[in-house]
């Protein structure tokens, strides 16, 4: 077996090698090969982790120092999602990024972002978690400001300020935890916090939630997201909305649910999740800028996933993870296509896309499928995942669960209206004659088609998927 340590080592070494050679071909080749190889590595570990009752320890220093890295079913699953998404986004970037526009450095930063994403999946140490979080944040700041125009610089600065405040909270929480636990390994922390004063643990847990909540875009600390995700290059928007916030969400929830298990944070989490759904959908409804609309929609979708997790039931965790998979596919496709809409029209405003469906028929059709899945139209994957979230909430019962169901249904109505508004503009009669066809370049089209295929045919995978998702959902609630 190849060691999962490669998840961290391979992208990091690739980053150094490509900056050393400073050649576009080497950079592009490595950034395609590394995620593909790591996706295979994740797949090869998946059967073992599914069969194992406990996470498999990858590397550790003897206790009490620990600093363990382990892989479990949830970790393997998230790693595969991250690796596949990254490979497709790199494929898209190969035609989307302007040639010679510091391209090698772009791929270097993407590789560093991947390093931290895989690190977050594997680590079982809260300070290591902080370090990987910081690497993730810093590489995101750099990628958001990539275009270096006014909006991107301001968005990146705003993201940095809020991200740094989040890191401050996270570090305070870690300090508070270490003070009573005397250890940083999550398993030891969970044991020690079980006997600590409840008020103290609750304070540390809430500090932790708002610390990591910034990166996971949990309401109300997500005000950076619409600016950052809309001002970044579209390939980066797809990475950030496609797996970075989801990954942060899963990691945050797992730590809250395990290390801080001594206090019940689920009611608080559920309230912020529901608030996120409603605020995100209402804000998206009023947007005229396509990427901003998609970014606000990410806030509400994150809310739906967090709501499903916060139900505290096995069904809820499974539904949340399936919805996460759907959102990763659909939102990545939508952002990637929006990127080419902007390239072809030179505008980010939806109103300027009138009749674009005739110039870019394939892209617009793929956009339609991804949007329909996001809304939850049967028989696309989004219908099944959203239905499962709602039925899990119904099974859990209680006032806040039903409130969540009502809010999600109301949000779906809003979502349908604003996404159909975009589709109506796209397929409006062309203004003058029959314009020349100008679909996406083929590497980009291939990447988008694969993302869209996931959400269109994903429902066929559900029977296979549901056998794996159970152990993965257990990973949200167990540690060692």
């Amino acid at each position: 077996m190849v060691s999962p340590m490669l998840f961290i080592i391979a992208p990091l070494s690739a980053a150094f090698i490509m900056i050393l050679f400073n050649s576009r071909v080497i950079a592009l080749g490595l950034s395609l090969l590394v995620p593909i190889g790591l996706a295979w590595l994740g797949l090869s570990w998946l059967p073992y982790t599914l069969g194992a009752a406990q996470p498999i320890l990858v590397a550790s220093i003897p206790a009490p120092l620990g600093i363990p890295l382990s892989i479990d079913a949830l970790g393997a699953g998230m790693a595969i999602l991250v690796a596949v998404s990254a490979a497709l986004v790199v494929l898209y970037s190969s035609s989307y990024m302007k040639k010679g526009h510091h391209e090698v450095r772009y791929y270097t930063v993407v590789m560093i972002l991947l390093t931290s994403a895989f690190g977050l999946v594997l680590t079982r140490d809260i300070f290591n978690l902080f370090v990987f979080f910081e690497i993730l944040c810093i590489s995101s700041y750099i990628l958001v400001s990539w275009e270096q125009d006014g909006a991107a610089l301001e968005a990146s600065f705003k993201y940095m300020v809020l991200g740094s405040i989040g890191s401050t909270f996270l570090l305070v929480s870690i300090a508070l935890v270490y003070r009573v636990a005397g250890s940083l390994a999550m398993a030891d922390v969970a044991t020690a916090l079980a006997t600590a004063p409840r008020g103290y643990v609750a304070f540390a847990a809430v500090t932790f939630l708002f610390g990591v909540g910034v990166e996971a875009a949990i309401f109300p600390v997500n005000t950076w997201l619409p600016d950052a995700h809309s001002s970044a290059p579209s390939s980066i928007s797809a990475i950030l909305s496609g797996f970075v916030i989801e990954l942060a969400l899963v990691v945050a929830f797992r730590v809250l649910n395990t290390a801080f298990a001594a206090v019940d944070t689920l009611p608080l989490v559920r309230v912020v999740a529901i608030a996120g759904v409603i605020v995100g959908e209402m804000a998206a409804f009023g947007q005229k800028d396509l990427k901003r609309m998609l970014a606000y929609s990410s806030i509400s979708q994150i809310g739906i996933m967090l709501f499903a997790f916060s139900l505290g039931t096995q069904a809820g965790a499974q539904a949340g993870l399936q919805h996460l998979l759907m959102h990763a596919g659909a939102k990545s496709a939508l952002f990637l296509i929006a990127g080419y809409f902007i390239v072809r029209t030179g505008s980010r405003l939806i109103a300027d896309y009138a009749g674009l469906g005739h110039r870019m028929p394939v892209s617009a059709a793929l956009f339609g499928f991804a949007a329909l899945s996001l809304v939850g139209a049967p028989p696309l994957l989004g219908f099944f995942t959203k239905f499962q979230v709602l039925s899990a909430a119904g099974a859990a019962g209680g006032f806040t669960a039903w409130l969540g169901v009502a809010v999600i249904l109301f949000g779906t109505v809003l979502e349908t209206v604003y996404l159909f508004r975009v589709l109506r503009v796209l397929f409006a009669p062309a203004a003058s004659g029959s314009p020349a066809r100008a679909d996406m370049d083929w590497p980009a089209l291939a990447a988008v088609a694969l993302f869209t295929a996931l959400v269109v045919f994903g429902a066929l995978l559900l029977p296979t998927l549901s056998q794996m998702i159970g152990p993965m959902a257990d990973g949200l609630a167990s540690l060692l």
Partner: protein
Amino acid sequence: MISTAQILYITSFALIVIGLYAVLSQRNLIRVVIGLNIADVGINLLLVTIGYVEGGRVPIFAAGQSAGTMVDPVPQALVLTAIVIGFGVTALMLTLVMRIYAHHGTVDASRLRGLKW
């Protein structure tokens, strides 16, 4: 009588609050960065204080000494990491402020449309 550790805890939380207040109240981007740095110092102090032992020794083993009277070295290692990360983030932020100034000719957040929060 207030112990040294209590004074340090109060100081560190005061620094964090002052820093965050500066970040939220100041319009000048450079001052925002300085505010974050003050908060960073507060956290570093908090971490070191957690490992502090009244009358403790340097955590280096010599012949015949036990770990009992040593200060805890782990938070000190964490602080080193936190300082390095803080330095990197500060450098990146100042670079962005420079770019924003070159682009808009101002570092006043109230005059930058994208920086309202």
